[in-house]
């Protein structure tokens, strides 16, 4: 079918050149005299036909252009690195020489020894708590716990919520009725009440089952949002067009509709992650979540809530990390949403 190889080469190169004129032009692209000269120049340098880019590559390119997301990503990686390398994880030793559960004599009333100029960590950079535990180690342990819980909750809620919402919204009928009634039931039971019944048992198993359990009760909002998106998208003509060429339901759901709901899913999941940190805090406070001697950021704040006026650092460090993590996650979510949306490319160059 390549009847006019030269001509089609022309138009290719020219379009590369003049992005902005595209929207107003319809067909006569390879005819302008001004552009002919330019295309000849371009053609001599590169003759390759435009190669087809995969969706994944385009998403990556767009994500790497988003400065906020990159900053968020950097911050989050830094926090993860700091918390896991300092006190070690799962038996592996870290570079910090104190443990979070060892009591010691209080040094200088437990004040932080961290100085920025000249930089030195000192004996207890974040200070010590009332019992004399090293607060740096304690905070690092708290970050580990909170991050693990938050991400597991986000993941579980995302998978369940998206699946339930997508299946209900796409298939309609009794499937939808059944799934949405289940969703309604889960919504109507207050989280704290189920937590009170189940969490006491679950928490003893460690934080991973606890996090999975939290995920199992927080997917409902996402399911409803995704279902709503699916309801409107399944009536769109591009879905009909995919059906008319015989695409399977799975292909339509995953290839055609789901990518169009990525924005909703990601924003809602990042909010769920931030929310999970707070939920875990609330449950830990009630004694239903993380149990001592283990700790989490929320628990650390709660344990020291009466110390705000006398020993503010006990409040400051975990609080600062909660804010930093939540912000970083939201920025990354923002970047991912834009990266998955092809319309964003022109604005965020």
């Amino acid at each position, binding site marked *: 079918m390549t009847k006019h190889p030269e001509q089609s080469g022309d138009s*290719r190169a*020219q379009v590369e050149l003049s992005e902005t004129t595209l929207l107003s032009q319809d067909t006569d692209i390879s005819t302008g005299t001004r552009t002919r000269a330019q295309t000849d120049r371009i053609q001599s340098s590169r003759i390759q036909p435009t190669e087809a880019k995969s969706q994944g590559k*385009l998403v990556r390119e767009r994500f790497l252009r988003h400065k906020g997301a990159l900053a968020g990503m950097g911050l989050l990686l830094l926090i993860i690195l700091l918390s896991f390398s300092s006190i070690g994880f799962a038996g592996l030793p870290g570079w910090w020489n104190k443990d979070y559960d060892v009591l010691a004599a209080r040094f200088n009333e437990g004040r932080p020894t961290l100085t920025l100029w000249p930089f030195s960590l000192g004996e207890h950079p974040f200070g010590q708590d009332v019992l004399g535990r090293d607060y740096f180690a304690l905070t690092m342990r708290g970050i580990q716990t909170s991050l693990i819980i938050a991400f597991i909750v986000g993941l579980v809620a995302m998978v369940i919520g998206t699946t339930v919402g997508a299946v209900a919204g796409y298939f309609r009928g009794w499937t939808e009725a059944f799934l949405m009634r289940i969703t309604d039931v889960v919504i109507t039971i207050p989280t704290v009440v189920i937590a009170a019944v189940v969490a006491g048992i679950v928490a003893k198993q460690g934080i991973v089952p606890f996090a999975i359990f939290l995920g199992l009760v927080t997917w409902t909002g996402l399911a409803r949002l995704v279902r709503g998106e699916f309801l409107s998208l399944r009536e769109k003509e591009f879905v009909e067009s995919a059906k008319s060429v015989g695409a399977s339901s799975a292909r339509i759901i995953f290839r055609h509709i789901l990518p169009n709901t990525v924005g909703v899913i990601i924003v809602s999941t990042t909010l769920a992650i931030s929310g999970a940190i707070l939920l875990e805090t609330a449950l830990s406070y009630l004694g239903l979540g993380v149990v001592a001697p283990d700790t989490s950021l929320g628990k650390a704040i709660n344990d020291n809530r009466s110390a705000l006026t006398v020993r503010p650092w006990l409040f400051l460090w975990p609080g600062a990390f909660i804010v930093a993590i939540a912000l970083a996650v939201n920025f990354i979510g923002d970047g991912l949403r834009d990266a998955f949306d092809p319309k964003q490319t022109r604005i965020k160059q």
Partner: protein
Amino acid sequence: MSASEASLVIDDAAPAREGAILSVSGLCVDFSVDGEWVMAAEDVSYEIHPGEILAIVGESGSGKSMSSMALLGLLPRNGRSSGSAKMLGKELIGAPQSALRRIRGNDIAMIFQEPMTALNPVLTVGEQIREAVEQHTEASPAQAKERAIELLAMVEIPEPAKRYDSYPHQFSGGQRQRAMIAIALANDPMLLVADEPTTALDVTVQAEVLELLRRLNKRLNSAVLLITHDMGVVADLADNVVVMERGRVVETAPTAQLFTSPREPYTRQLLDAVPHLGSRVGGVLSDYEVVDGALRVHEAYARAADAEQQTHRDAGTVPALELVNVDIEYPGRFRQAPFKAVNDVSFTINPGEVLGLVGESGSGKSTIARAVTGLIRTSAGSVTIAGTDITALSARKLLPLRKKFAIVFQDPAASLNPRLSIGESIGEPMYLHEKLNRADLDKRVGELLDDVQLPVSFRNRYPHELSGGQRQRVGIARALSLRPDLLVADEPTSALDVSVQAKVLELLQELQRERGFACLFVSHDLAVVELLASHIAVLNKGRLVEQGTTEQILKYPKDSYTRRLLAAAPVPDPAEQALRREQRNAILAAGASAE
């Protein structure tokens, strides 16, 4: 002259004044986009006199709407206007919002494109008209209601006193637009700005609304500024025409002169792009002649055409598509009865033939297109594609058959997945059916883009980066990717500008000649169907009222609905349109007396 003096002058002199009601000169409109000013209209100048209908014509993006919105101070926040627009000597551009608010609805009134969204669904139509009256006058509620009923009568709504208490959803589309006109006329405006007043309406309803506008304009002696893209509407209604292109006025001329001898190349190009009903078969409703206001029918022509149709049926090939007594029902819910969208429809398309399926909105034409492509199930009858009845097949058995037919949708923006690149969209059918590897798939996509005259680099673009015409080309490329024997085109050009429509139609014609697929071309536009189709089937409320060759249907229609449809379609030629108007009135009168 100060503002207060100006208003005094207007009050005294307005009724008798012979000069222009509105004179616009050097009007510019810009929009701030990302901190830069982008021109939407530049140096627009025109005048409107009492009793005149001035049409501003242009394609989308020509600035015709925005330049009119600027007159009323209704620009979006990021817009600004400069230049001068004088309403009876009073400057509108730069006037404070409070002054403009008094003018809007009082001296200048607007009619919008979409009557359903312009009316408030929770208020009765009567209340909305009354509100418009009360806003600008001191009338008591009782007087305002009386005036509202009077206005409803004026826009020819039957039983106005009773309909006063109806809600917008109880009105038909045409009646809603009439109600909008009534609201616009509530305070006897001197200028009526009608922004695409009939674009959302069916042709027969459009003809009625245009007739009403013409009569009101004569009766009230108010001026009308008609903004439209439809040359047929211009030919039907306007006295003078302003042609706009990319924000500039290209040509201003009296209507008759513009259509017979356009000066500017752009105008000529625009007029050439408009499909003209009857241009290919040489005439419409040829056996109807209006003599002294009465209708004469020549039966002999019709019989000759009929005979030809018979021989066509007996050709003896396997038809590409055959519908036999097809019913399609939309299931009811709770207490709602199921809705029968298509009722006992039969037609045949032979290989290589183009059948135009014509009907107004709600006639079931799109439903048939979807049933033919297996998107909706039929409730009775058979749909046979290349010898196989698809109504009885399961989804799995239908799959290999799907290669044989393809569909092009109406709205190119909605029919392409915004998250898939053009290349992926086009490649999908081939990926599903032929399991090609990447390299082969890429090559085929490149060839297809070439076939629809798009540069191959477009494969990495996304639908939003393309213009409407380009998107529709992509839609066509996707539909043709598996070399189908039958192409179903569901209003493929109705969302496009005329010049783009002309190019897309040309492309479709060319591809059809080259590849010889059969085509079911669904459209509401008879002129477009005439260009492409060799045969036409006319649908009315789910029933097939008439079918035959294009010539037969257009020249010698037998069914009264087909006649009305043909008579209502405006043609871009003022002289011919005047004759057709007369013919239409005669046909309607004959229809009324026959019933």
